[in-house]
């Protein structure tokens, strides 16, 4: 056996796996999406049909809001955790990154325990104002759930980036007269930008496509993964759910690709 054919033989399993579990289903999905009564126009329906369009916009807004709030919270926390040494720091970091271990169902369950009908927040507001505050079963509950599992990832990324930050840059800026805010604005945040883009893209992709949390909270939340699920299982609308799937995939892929071209480093999808 020649060296070359040996290499090809080694690549065979990869080729089989790629074809069987990636290329074929993707192709099938794309074909199915165009297989409805409207044909290729089925894809257009995602944008034209008000229900689909609203859901699409909702999902993107939810993902964007999750990303922005996650970045703000996680950057401040990550910077503090990386720069300060105090008793209990290791425990705190372990706790903050704990949600990484949970599947979406558990996160959803925790949101219900927090903001559901028997939730902590409801109890508390009932005692204070005589009214139960319940928002677990809405898009706000979902937002909270996504925050919960996006923050740990971003904190870890930001901490790694802060660690690599040259303290000399901040000292140089200060020596030139820059106060604390100016140092953050002109030196620290620009240096952390690649980390923001990379971890923000992951947070966005996760919030776009995560299903477990949404499904646990309620089946009538207007987000794309839920819509795909209901179209598929309840309405048996195969072509529309396929078209929606492709649309979701393209948006997420586009964001990740954009992030990759900005940061240059590998950005892996997650969720």
């Amino acid at each position, binding site marked *: 056996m020649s060296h070359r054919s040996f290499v090809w033989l080694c690549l065979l399993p990869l080729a089989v796996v790629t074809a069987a579990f990636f290329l074929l289903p993707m192709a099938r999905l794309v074909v199915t999406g165009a297989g409805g009564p409207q044909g290729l126009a089925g894809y257009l329906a995602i944008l034209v049909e008000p229900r689909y369009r609203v859901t699409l916009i909702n999902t993107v807004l939810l993902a964007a809001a999750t990303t922005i709030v996650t970045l703000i919270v996680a950057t401040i926390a990550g910077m503090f955790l990386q720069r300060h040494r105090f008793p209990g720091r290791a425990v705190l970091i372990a706790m903050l990154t704990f949600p990484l271990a949970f599947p979406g169902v558990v996160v959803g369950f925790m949101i219900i325990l927090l903001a559901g009908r028997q939730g902590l927040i409801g109890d508390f507001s009932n005692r204070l104002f005589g009214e139960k505050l319940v928002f677990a079963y809405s898009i706000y509950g979902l937002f909270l759930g996504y925050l919960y599992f996006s923050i740990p990832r971003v904190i870890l990324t930001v901490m790694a980036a802060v660690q690599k930050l040259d303290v000399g840059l901040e000292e140089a*800026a200060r020596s030139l*007269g820059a*106060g604390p805010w100016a140092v953050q604005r002109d030196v620290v945040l*620009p240096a952390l930008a690649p980390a923001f883009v990379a971890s923000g893209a992951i947070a966005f992709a996760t919030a776009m496509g995560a299903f477990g949390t949404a499904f646990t909270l309620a089946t009538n939340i207007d987000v794309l993964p839920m819509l795909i699920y209901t179209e598929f299982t309840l309405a048996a609308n195969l072509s529309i759910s396929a078209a929606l799937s492709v649309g979701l995939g393209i948006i997420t892929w586009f964001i990740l690709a954009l992030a990759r071209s900005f940061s240059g480093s590998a950005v892996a999808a997650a969720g």
Partner: protein
Amino acid sequence: MSAEAGHGASVRIEACGKTFADGTHALEPATLDIASGETLVLLGPSGCGKTTMLRIIAGLEAPDAGGRVLFDGKDMTAVPIERRNVGMVFQSYALFPNMTVADNIGYGLKIRGMPDKERAARVAELVTLTNISGLENRRIDQLSGGQRQRVALARAVAIRPGILLLDEPLTALDAALRDRLRGELNRLLRALGITTIYVTHDQSEAMELGDRIVVMQKGAIAQIGTPREIYFTPRSRFVAEFIGAANIVEAAVEDGHLVLPGGRQPIHCDGDMPAAVAMIRPETIHVAAARSASLSGTIDSVSFIGDRQRLVVSGASSRLLTVDAPNTVQARPGERIGLSISPDAVRLLPPEN
């Protein structure tokens, strides 16, 4: 360049020590006066406390309780670095990677709210002064090491600081470039007239740049003096060996002579001492005929360096003696030679404690 000159602040550090959180004494309480416009070099091996002292002056570290830092007689101890008006050049240069060369140089001026037009003029002035014309719009990662060094210096000087602090600014460069930039830096510092505090572990840098040198050892000041004083009259064995090449000779002193295995060397000393330590610089030892000299030994090795040759001589002292001889002297290993040393060239050092 005359517009630049003569606005250096005087610096006084008073009983400034530094103990880090983990209990290490980086700096024993030290007091030091630096005159306006003076270039003071803090010299010593790594870990001697020189950078800590610089950072205390800069305001990047606070001295232990009781220590004070004064600029022009004004207590600056509690003033943060951003309000001390010091220019600082870091060993890593710490140039902002997200800004162009011009933006780096102009950053301190922008922070001070200088109008764009004025700022551009000042940046142009510094670009010329530091010889980096044409690089204004480059990104930092497009610059060579020497260019980065110049940008860092221009950025620090742009704000017209009262004090310029340089932390091993040439260490990151290769030897040839370092020598060239050292000369340039020297001319620039003289022209600017800013009070300059320069940290280095390189004694030749210290000699060329410093009006005075502070030699530091293990967190304490070992000696303060002009380059000549430090070189010719070191106060300790550490200083003698750290600055230039030095032969350290341990011997008894009897009526004005060092008693050595290879003979008796006259020195300036009246009393007798059973165990004295003396320093003799290699270039002060002259090769003479073995018979006529009061001190003699055997050549162990000869290294031809070009402008001179370095002989290692055994048998003269209890240790090997290094002798810098003119390159015209004929010397072969194994030969017996005489050594003539002027009494002025032998410096007695205080015994180590």
